[in-house]
């Protein structure tokens, strides 16, 4: 199905299985590739294994007592199994965690600056990097002196992305950037994500429940359910796929439907 040449992939996940606490199987078989410079969407509902997949890549699983028990993850030609999150950031891979996770008591600006922790920069270099980020996120510049904990959800998401970008990553893992945000804000954030991908050349692996906006803004998509990849394909083909339309976008030949209706119909067919 996915026919990308391996040398062009910045990230390759091959048949991984992930277990938490030695007993809870979170992912049974996930394989995916992220071609260098592209945006890849990882789609699925709650508990499908999206976050777990991202955390296995950023090696943050260990801190949650999770383990990759089978398969392999190769980032930029290097196996990640023996590395820690700090190493991954140094290698240019940064994860933006689900729920934004800003440093609430730090100012917006301190939050963004903290992202450059692993880089050895002078004061003036930090300031120019900061300005570069403010160009993408002008809203953050207005609020630079506010305590991050008191900013809106959308602003916090921007802080989290800007903070991650301060590490000058080659690859960004975004975990549900749309969570809990108004549709207009979600659009705004995706526009910036796309812009970052275009201008900074950063590859992006994006976990989302919001299938529609995620696919509209990515190149390729994978749909996972209960820890397995069910379907993958170019973003365009997935957007036009009948199954995806029906189950994930709530659209059928008869027009828009909600998930409950779809379920009722499947029951009727079965019964």
């Amino acid at each position, binding site marked *: 199905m996915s026919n990308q040449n391996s040398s062009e992939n910045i990230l390759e996940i091959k048949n991984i299985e992930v277990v938490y606490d030695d007993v809870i199987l979170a992912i049974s078989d996930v394989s995916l590739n992220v071609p260098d410079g592209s945006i890849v969407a990882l789609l699925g509902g709650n508990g499908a294994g999206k976050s777990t997949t991202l955390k296995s890549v950023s090696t943050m699983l260990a801190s949650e007592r999770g383990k990759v028990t089978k398969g392999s993850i190769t980032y930029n030609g290097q196996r990640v199994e023996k590395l820690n999150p700090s190493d991954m950031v140094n290698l240019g891979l940064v994860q933006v965690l689900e729920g934004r996770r*800003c440093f609430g008591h730090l100012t917006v600006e*301190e939050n963004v600056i903290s992202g450059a922790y692993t880089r050895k920069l002078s004061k003036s270099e930090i300031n120019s990097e900061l300005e570069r980020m403010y160009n993408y996120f002008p809203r953050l510049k207005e609020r630079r002196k506010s305590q991050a904990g008191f900013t809106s959800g959308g602003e916090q998401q921007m802080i*989290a992305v800007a903070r991650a970008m301060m590490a000058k990553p080659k690859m960004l893992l975004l975990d549900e950037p749309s969570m809990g945000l108004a549709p207009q804000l979600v659009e705004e954030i995706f526009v910036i994500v796309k812009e970052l991908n275009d201008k900074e050349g950063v590859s992006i692996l994006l976990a989302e429940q919001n299938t529609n906006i995620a696919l509209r803004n990515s190149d390729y998509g994978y749909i996972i359910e209960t820890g397995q990849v069910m379907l993958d394909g170019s973003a365009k083909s997935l957007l036009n796929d009948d199954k995806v339309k029906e189950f994930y976008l709530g659209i059928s030949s008869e027009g828009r439907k909600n998930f409950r209706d779809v379920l009722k119909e499947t029951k009727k067919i079965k019964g």
Partner: protein
Amino acid sequence: MGSEILFFFEVLVGGLLAGTMYSLVALGFVLIYKASATFNFAQGAMVFFAVLSFVGFMELGLPFFLAFLVTIGLMVVVGLSTERLVLRPLMNQSEDTLLMATIGLGYVLEGLAQAAWGVEVRRLDLGIPDFPIMFIADSIGIFISALDLTAGAVAAFMVISLAVLFTQTKIGLGLRAVADDPGAASSIGIPLKHIMLLVWSAAGVVALVAGCLWGARAGVQFALVDLALKALPVLIIGGFSSIPGAIVGGLIIGSTEKVLEVYIGPFFGGAIEGWAPYVLAVFFLLKRPEGLFGEKIIRRV
């Protein structure tokens, strides 16, 4: 000036300066609270451990300065082992678990210190007399101990350096980030173990300095562990996460306990300075639980 007023000022100044010694102990708590959001019950034991080792090294024949450096080294080792043996295995556990672990750590340190250096009370002579400075006594008629004054100056110095460390340096930013959200801090590559090592070592050094000043006054003995818990009301008043709070809290506790002791104490049969600070602390817990300078608990709804 009337002698009544002079006496009041003398009590007040003595209290304020004694308060700086509480502040010093409280600083150690604040450091660890800021980086791991845990009240470190072992801080009192660290004070005891540090100063007892310091005195022990001097008894072994090391000169004052060298003994101080060796003890600082020892406190860094304590910090290192704490990170390795206690904090790392408990990473991502609840804060309560860590709190219990610090109580255990406290007992271990108390035991180790006494096993290594014995249980008898030691005298610590810093070369600073705990007597009123005659110069000040003669000119304005207030009796202030030289030790108190030194403690005040040392506390001021420690506070300023720690405040600069926290607000002006990259390490300080890292420390505050880890305190807010260790997971997020590690997601942007801040190495948690380095931060923890640094904080515990710094808390060890603060404990040593506080221990020296307390030890010079009260003798180097086991009671220092409980004395250090006086920092609890200081922190409740000042705020657990605030360095200026530790200072102001210490000053408030120091001055009120002395003033109350002198003026109200007799009505209660004396010795109220032992519990008066806790009454004050309860009042603060009811009216302003985050303390004077503590970070407001941010909760978005």
